[in-house]
């Protein structure tokens, strides 16, 4: 029982990341009909927003400490951060400590801008091109983006910690009446789950309750008709692309403390997020979220020793196996609409 609760927690956490990425991907699929292979790269850039802000905050000037030696035996160069100099050591250190949450503020404008530039500068010209061309151009873009990041940050993962207060873990089991140490869960992962839930909620509320959202939803259902009504759907779609980029970026920012960001993390998630979107059903936002959490939880269950001893290697293939079963039993995924991306 405790093991199952633990894996459900894990699954919700993994599912949060899948759902957030898939949500943005579906927004782009659904509104623009574009297969965006660069979406994983947007997630990665989000994570590097956190890294970058951390780098900016720890920028400093160098003083030479004659009492210490560096590895070559020369006097040690000591880096003093401006932030700590300006705000005093305590507040300065706190600001640096909170760089990941602060990066949210930093990432939103950056990601929206990247989204706008991508849509206006590139994707716009591919609305009426075959999906194959969209795949090629966005894949090319994804490579370019990740190579740029690699050029500046290297290939090695870059540790980016959560604020001190969120390190460590919560003994969840005790709350439920289990023994201590049975169900423990890291604070930051709980934060990530709540954050994801908030973002998902915000996107849905936005689409549900604003006129902008209504037009976009109508556009997702039937683009031509909405266009005929004289509504400038294109501009709204540009904004939608910005939002999708921001969602992917925020997913990345908050993911940075969970696993150290590296330049190819987008590609690691790309295939998986496509599977999630398709399992959820093309063009369905709730489907994408549902599939994200479902696959996250199933993946966690599949990695339990009990399951693995029964079916060796099941955790390697569970996502794909489930995808196949769902697509064969439900032709358009969990909640897909007819006729979307079936040609």
């Amino acid at each position, binding site marked *: 029982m405790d093991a199952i609760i633990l894996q459900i927690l894990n699954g919700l956490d993994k599912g949060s990341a899948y759902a957030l990425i898939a949500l943005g991907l579906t927004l782009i699929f659904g509104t623009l009909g574009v*297969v965006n292979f660069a979406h994983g790269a947007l997630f990665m850039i989000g994570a590097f927003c956190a890294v970058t802000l951390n780098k900016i905050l720890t920028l400093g000037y160098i003083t030479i400490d004659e009492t210490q030696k560096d590895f070559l035996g020369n006097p040690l160069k000591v880096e003093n951060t401006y932030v700590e100099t300006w705000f005093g050591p305590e507040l300065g250190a706190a600001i640096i400590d909170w760089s990941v949450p602060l990066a949210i503020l930093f990432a939103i404008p950056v990601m929206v801008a990247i989204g706008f530039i991508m849509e206006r500068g*590139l994707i716009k*010209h591919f609305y009426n*091109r075959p*999906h*194959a*061309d969209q*795949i*090629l*151009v966005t*894949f*090319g*873009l*994804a*490579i*370019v983006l990740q*190579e*740029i990041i690699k*050029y500046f940050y290297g290939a090695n993962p870059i540790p980016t910690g959560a604020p001190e207060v969120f390190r460590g873990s919560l003994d969840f089991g005790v709350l439920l009446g289990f023994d201590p140490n049975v169900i423990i869960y890291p604070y930051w992962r709980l934060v990530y789950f709540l954050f994801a839930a908030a973002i998902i909620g915000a996107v849905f509320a936005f689409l549900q309750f604003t006129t902008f959202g209504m037009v976009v939803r109508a556009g997702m259902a039937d683009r031509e008709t909405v266009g005929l009504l004289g509504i400038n759907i294109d501009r709204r779609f540009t904004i939608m692309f910005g939002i999708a980029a921001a969602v992917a970026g925020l997913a990345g920012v908050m993911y940075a403390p969970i696993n150290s960001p590296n330049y190819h993390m987008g590609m690691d998630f790309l*295939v998986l997020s*496509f*599977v999630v979107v*398709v*399992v959820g059903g*093309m063009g369905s936002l709730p489907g994408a979220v549902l599939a994200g959490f479902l696959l996250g939880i199933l993946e966690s269950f599949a990695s339990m020793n009990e399951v693995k001893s029964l079916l*060796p*290697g099941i955790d*390697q*293939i569970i*996502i*794909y*196996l489930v*995808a*196949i079963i769902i*697509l*064969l039993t439900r*032709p*358009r*995924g969990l909640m897909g609409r007819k006729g979307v*991306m*079936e*040609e």
Partner: protein
Amino acid sequence: MLGLDKRDATLLIIVTLLTMFAPFILNPFPEGSAMAQFNAGYPDLMQRFVIFGIFAVGFNILFGLTGYLSFGHAAFLGVGSYSAVWMFKLLSMNVVPAIILAVIVSGLFALVIGYVSLRRSGIYFSILTLAFAQMSFALAYSVLTPITNGETGLQVYNDDPQYLMGPDSPTVTNLFGLEMRSTYTLDMGPWSFDFNAGYYMCALFMLAAVYLSIRIFRSPFGLMLKAVKSNQQRMNFTGLNTRPYTLAAFVISGMYAGLAGGLMASMDPLAGAERMQWTASGEVVLMTILGGAGTLIGPILGAGFIKYFENIFSKINDSVLHQWFAFMPDGLEDFMVFIIHPFIGKGWHLTLGILFMLVVIFLPGGLVEGGQRIAAWLRSKTPGAKDETTKSTEPAE
């Protein structure tokens, strides 16, 4: 000729000439010159050009004709390679049984995966094929290690049974005694050209593959496949069952992939699991689109393009750059190296990504369209060839 019309026959002749004279064409720069870095006429890369050409030509039969975008075709290439290496391990180093088994096994594998995946269309089909291929890769890398030798890749060991191996049989891959690696080097002044037995065998296979592909494109079957892409509804209401057509196309292209895999193993008897990974499947998709999906020659061009960058650009390093720009004043030399540095060596991915984007933005029909535009431009320069110019703007097939 050979049941082809004039245009197709010309195309086949051109491809034949290009492949037969590839050792010359790909080594245009004298050895030791600064430009020799760009020579691609060494056996391994030439073999890769034609093997991936076969792979892409086969993929194009499915994707170019029916529009079904498989994202798991590398699995068939991998299965073909594994089958071939097992033949080496069990029988002998002769490539004939290996290639035959590779084609058969990958065909069967494609039949099973295609039968299931083709129950869906569009992106649902793509994800089904992707899922099957990723499962194959993940299992081959881990649980199936006894069959695939996992991370290291399946290879031939001295203690393998090799039942058909005589005492004098060659210990390297061979075609009835002709060693695949044997190379005859021709020196002409500063130039050097390699003629490799393995390459020519692969090239002959590729010519056969291209020929078969042309026949399929021009056959009633090919017409039906194009009809599937154009309008499935009309197909059904014209008394045609689309499923066996698409399945046949899937299996044929899977067998092409198996042939490519078998040839790869024949050139180099090691089959790594990575060749089944989604990136490998994605690569053949990119090759086909880059060259021009649905065209006869496009996929080969795309395959050559990507393999060239992978093998040539990745090997240019800073010291090579310094050599190139050595004639410049020091500051300028360093500046040029600094500018070009991000695009070569470890930056070859960046160059490739940029080129993907440029090609697809400016040449919607892929490299073939580029070729056509150049041809049209050349013709417009030649007076009295106006009528042909209009002809070339038709979609090439």
